[in-house]
């Protein structure tokens, strides 16, 4: 049944306006089953497999024992599902601590960034202040400055303020947000001015207007910014890498580097896959449910938007 639906819909897209005699149409449909499967389905299956196989292999390997990792005779499934790699990861490195640090840094960092973005965007759209356009262009240009170029001066500044191996040292330098400001400014600009003017007449201040009117109406855009920010904070690597040397302060990606150094050699692959699962799976889960927002946020500003 499902094949029939697929077949007919695919036929429809491939031959627009193909409205000839009924008999010929059904013959045409039959002839198109094979091309539909080859041309329509096969590429999609290949695409999904190319992405899913490495990630699936990561998950399966993380449950295998060392003897099943160091072997020339590969098996797909673990002989006996074992959590040994996970306990080993938590034993050789403070993985629980890495996880908590990542959660903490992501939560605080993303919350502050989103709040800053909301308030900045509101000010840029609805508040009159001098040199507004110049400041907006400066924010726009900051969007283009890669953080990698800024790490050495920021390191020297933060280290000079005794910020090495501190949470604030990890979080503060990346708090300024150009991306969120830019995206929310676009969303806020599309709001009808009359709505806000009515509120102004009612005597509502800027903060009241922002929280009671603007934020509820633009919630999807804010969710987009929040999700993209959370994901990028979680994955952030180069800055936490240089600013932390104490394992107790490391985030997951940095901790994985430590794990990689400790577990060098093929025997460590199982443990490293367990570590990779811990850093990858939460993002994958969030992405699976909210991919529409994340894709929209990450491809914002493209020709298609």
């Amino acid at each position, binding site marked *: 049944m*499902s094949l029939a639906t*697929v077949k007919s819909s*695919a036929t429809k*897209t491939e031959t*627009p*306006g193909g409205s000839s005699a009924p008999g010929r149409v059904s013959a045409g449909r039959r002839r198109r089953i094979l091309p539909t499967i080859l041309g*329509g389905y096969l*590429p*999609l299956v290949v*695409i*999904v497999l*190319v*992405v899913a196989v*490495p990630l699936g*292999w*990561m998950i399966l*390997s993380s449950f295998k024992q060392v003897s099943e990792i160091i072997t*020339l005779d*590969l098996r797909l499934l673990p002989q006996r599902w074992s959590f040994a790699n996970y306990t080993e990861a938590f034993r050789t490195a403070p993985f629980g601590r890495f996880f908590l640090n990542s959660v903490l840094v992501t939560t605080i960092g993303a919350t502050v960034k989103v709040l800053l973005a909301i*308030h*900045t965007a*509101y*000010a840029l759209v609805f*508040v009159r202040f001098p040199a507004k356009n110049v*400041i907006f262009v*400066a*924010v726009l240009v*900051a969007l*283009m*400055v*890669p953080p*990698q*170029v*800024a*790490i*050495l*001066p*920021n390191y*020297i500044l933060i280290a000079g303020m005794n910020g090495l191996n501190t949470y604030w040292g990890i979080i503060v*330098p990346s*708090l*300024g*947000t150009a991306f969120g400001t830019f995206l929310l400014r676009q969303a806020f600009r599309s709001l009808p001015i009359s709505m806000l003017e009515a509120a102004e007449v009612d005597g509502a201040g800027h903060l009241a207007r922002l929280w009671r009117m603007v934020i509820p109406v633009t919630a999807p855009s804010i969710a987009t910014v929040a999700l993209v920010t959370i994901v990028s904070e979680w994955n952030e690597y*180069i800055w936490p890498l*240089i600013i932390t040397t104490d394992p107790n302060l490391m985030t997951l*990606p940095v901790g*994985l*580097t430590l794990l*990689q150094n400790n577990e060098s050699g093929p025997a460590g692959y199982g443990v*490293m896959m367990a570590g*990779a699962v811990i850093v990858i799976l939460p*993002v*994958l889960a969030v*992405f*699976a449910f909210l*991919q529409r927002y994340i894709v929209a946020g990450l*491809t914002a500003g*493209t*020709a*298609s938007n």
Partner: protein
Amino acid sequence: MALPNFVLIGAFTYRPLIMNIYYSTLNWTLGSASATIVGFGNYVRFFTSDAAGVVLTTTAIFAVLTVGGSMLLGLLVALALNTKVRGQTLARASVFAPYVLSGVGVGLVWLFIFDPVYGVLAYVLRRFGTESPRWFNDPTLSLVMVIVVYVWKNLGYCAIVYLAGLQSLPADVMEAASLDGASTLRRFWHVSLPLLGPTTLFLLITTILSSLQAFDLIKIMTPTSQGTRTLIYEAYVQGFGAYQRAGYSAAISVILFVFLITLTIVQIAWVDRKVHYS
């Protein structure tokens, strides 16, 4: 209400740009109390050393192959996704997923896959009767390995942007082309591809920009920077590796920044005018 954000952007985005230029004129070991001013000395040292050739060539090869690879494969994937076949949504989400995953995690997973003895790839090659190349020992192979993984991780972005481009192609033009009896291939080559020009140009610039900033995968997959001394990685290794050459590292960062800002200006001045926002 916007002031904190402006202050933060100023302090941690703009200030470093200026400080980098200042640091790049110093002969200074990171953490050392004394530094001597050497003017353009660090730049001269970089461009006259053997490293410059290696680093600039590696950066160029990495950029060309990752950009070419992810755009070409991205376009092919977009064409495959541009159907109404069931499961298209799943495939679309799948192809984009690696783009949002931690580069460190992804790098570790692929290191295991590429392992010349115990990796899946070696296993498959053995089944076909060949030995796995020694990915970890040969500089060229290491670079190839990182490029393959980078393309795997990033092609989804190109695919989704191209897909959006394909779906916004004017229906009347496409219909006219098919009524004229043009074959699928000819329609793609003579109608779709030229119409996708602005999308291609946009992707070209943005993917070059992100390729020049690639760090996570390179650091994890080639910790000794064997074969992968790109500008960004060289700046990191020189500044935060064994030598802690802050001034020299800053000079390389400034060189990288000049490349990036040039591309950004090209994008703003040229591409944005051609890309149609709708």
